[in-house]
């Protein structure tokens, strides 16, 4: 039911430690299964220097929060000006999902869109 990427990130979630400082928080969720994801973002030296994630919901959405927080960490601000082909990236990073888990591809894309908007507002 779960691919190895999801199993690893659900069992050993990344970026769970509270940040002492952050610039903004992005939130998203899925009303059908009540997934809720929050990502804390710290910007420094024109890049994302630190992230923290907190997620509630199905195992795949918890893993998605972990994967997303890891993916954006270290990303340069200028990278957000480019076309990131994020739908493709979501499939690549989350791996093959079952139909009932595929809403997490959308969650990943929504998080990225939300992040881009926040970065635009803060820096660009």
């Amino acid at each position: 039911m779960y691919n190895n990427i999801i199993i690893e990130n659900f069992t050993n979630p990344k970026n769970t430690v509270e940040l002492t400082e952050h610039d903004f928080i992005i939130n998203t969720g899925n009303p059908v299964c009540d997934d809720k994801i929050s990502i804390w973002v710290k910007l420094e030296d024109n890049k994302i220097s630190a992230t923290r994630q907190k997620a509630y919901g199905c195992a795949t959405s918890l893993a998605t929060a972990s994967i997303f927080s890891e993916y954006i960490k270290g990303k340069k601000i200028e990278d957000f000006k480019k076309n990131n082909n994020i739908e493709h990236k979501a499939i690549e990073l989350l791996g093959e999902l079952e139909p009932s888990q595929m809403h997490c591809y959308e969650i990943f894309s929504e998080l990225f869109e939300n992040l881009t908007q926040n970065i635009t507002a803060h820096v660009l």
Partner: protein
Amino acid sequence: MNKLTNLQDLIFNLEEVYNLPAEKQNEIKTQLIIENFKYHYENNEFYRNSCNEKKINLNSIKTFNDLIKIPLIPVKRFKDVNSHLLLTKKLHEIEYEMRSTGTSGIPSVSRRDSKTVDNALLSLYAMYREFFKLSSGASLFLMPSTEDIPEMGMIKVLGMISGLTDASWYAVKGNKFKAQEAYDLLEKWSHKHTRHIVGPPFLVYKFIQFLQKNNLKIKLDKGSYIINLGGWKRFTGEQISRKEYNDLCEEYLGIPTSNVRDTYGLVECNSLAMECTNNQKHISPWVHYSVRDINDLSQEVKPGERGVLAILDPISTSYPTFILTEDLVYLNDTDVCNCGRNGQVVNYISRVRGAEIGCCAINLEKQMDTAEASESAKNCVIV
């Protein structure tokens, strides 16, 4: 009745098990709970560490009187971001996730492996068969379908009834309650099927209000049931009175109180307590309800006295279902019911003070109310 040694034996001989004296039932379920405790203790590091902190090990739990010592997992732990620690099975063995969401919007997610799903489905169907003997008829579900909300515990568990009847229809679509269509369908099914109404009390109540408003009454059939799950509290805080509800069901749906049956259960557990013809909620005989002193949770109160419910459910292999709920209940002070069944009977009182008011039904009502308010706002003409 000489081989009631495992769970499947109990499930497939439920009627006979309920007829056994309570002491015998306790003896049987004690063995199952001890075996299940041993399994989780040996295979779940997080749980074993919790036990060790309380100085409980496999030698500590040997008899029925020892069950009170089994360490309990507070039910809110299932909402934690690191609830994966509760799992005895690895995620790749998990087959199904089920959830319940209260007013906080944070879901409680319980994860079941294949064996737990087998056990839970078999035991729930066994209970439905034992208390309702359904194998035909038509079910009007006053709730959304599992297609609309696939992981909500209440909907999944009540929806199983559709597999026991010949026709079924779900009266909540896109967060809207289709009361007129529900009424029309009950009329259409008249003289063709024994009609049952299934859903949370607030939606049955809403349906009755629709009938009242439109001066309509229905006379359901001799073997019809109203089967409820989801509690009597509304998200507004209002409590639906059971007595008033029963009277309204009799007046507007033509169904006697003896066939208005409430059920009680938690998404995190694998069984439902179901009402008999005397409206007494019987616990599945393999499950143990232990009612704890609200001031000292390590102590049980006497039957008949109110306390916090702890549930010891030996069905699960995916996580230890030894759960301290946030519900205030009391057990009947007799193990014998006039319906002929023996064993524990639970009476729900309320949530404990300070606990989140919430369950699937309350969340559903909130969603429907929000959708209705948004629709009204859209249709509002500014003058």
